[in-house]
């Protein structure tokens, strides 16, 4: 009898915890724009970029091939835009490696590609909430100091309230990224 009540206790506790988790998860997506992110200039949120499209990419500075290639495409796409168009877009690089990529390091990294780009990271719960909001998976591959991270490498074009307007593969050429931006600037 004792065991039985213990069982029910744990069962209800589990039920309570999972409903809490569910509630928290549904809440997460609504507040993606409010998640505090760290840039070299201080805390930023996606909601700070009012009346601008956001071109969001994910990566890390220890990634030698795909991440620099993607940021190169993004910077070339920005250069294809007119100055007026460029003012209406903010390119943001989110680091999937907050352990090694400090905001200062990240800033130097993206400045190499384009002066208009900003880079951010987030830690702990904010990190996982942000990745979850965009359905990004990341996985550290070893405990080696030179570890690598497998991660989803999509480029997101976001509108108001971080609404996803377009999702592009990391290999998308600059002119197609620029076209996607122009299409949504008109809308």
């Amino acid at each position, binding site marked *: 009898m004792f065991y039985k009540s213990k069982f029910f206790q744990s069962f209800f506790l589990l039920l309570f915890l999972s409903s809490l988790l569910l509630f928290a998860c549904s809440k997460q997506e609504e507040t993606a724009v409010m998640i505090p992110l760290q840039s070299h200039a201080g805390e930023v949120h996606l909601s700070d970029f009012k009346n601008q499209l956001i071109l969001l990419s994910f990566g890390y500075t220890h990634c030698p091939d*795909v991440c620099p290639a993607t940021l190169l495409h993004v910077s070339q796409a920005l250069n294809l835009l007119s100055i007026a168009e460029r003012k209406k877009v903010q390119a943001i690089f989110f680091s999937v490696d907050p352990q090694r990529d400090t905001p200062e390091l990240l800033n130097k990294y993206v400045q190499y590609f384009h002066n208009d780009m900003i880079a951010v990271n987030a830690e702990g719960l904010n990190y996982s909430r942000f990745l979850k909001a965009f359905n990004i998976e990341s996985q550290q591959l070893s405990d080696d100091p030179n570890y690598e991270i497998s991660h989803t490498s999509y480029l997101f074009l976001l509108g108001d309230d971080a609404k996803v307007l377009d999702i592009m593969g*990391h290999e998308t050429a600059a002119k197609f990224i620029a076209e996607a931006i122009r299409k949504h600037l008109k809308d």
Partner: protein
Amino acid sequence: MKKPCFIILVLMLSVLPSLSVYAGDLVIEEAWVRMPPPVAETAAAYMTLTNKGDKLIMVESIDSEAAAKVEFHQMSMSNGMMHMAEMKDVRLDAGESLVFKAGSNHLMMIDLKDTLKAGDKVSLQLTTKDGSKYQIHAAVRDMRVQKHEHHH
């Protein structure tokens, strides 16, 4: 053969390795390194390996004075997620080519010792299981510099 001619011949031969990396059945071409952003501690290197011989070639190791470690990496995508794995077995059957190129399989230079600038030459040494050594000279390229498009 007269001595001056012999000296010239020796000089010419000594220049050869920098022009071509042929030193056995393995031919290594189109080697280059992506110029890493200033804070990056890694860089990607690219090249094409071709087995011009008639026997299997197994790569034992590759290293460079420019980095603590160099690895062959296999890139794969699944559901938009990018996976990198070290290729433990780099092997080429007779006549086979392995291409390591941008956005695909590549070489990862880990823990760079110095800043790599555009135009720098990076030396890499590849050793095969049979003990042959190949010297590779890869130029560092700044990919931000737009190449002119040629229309043929």
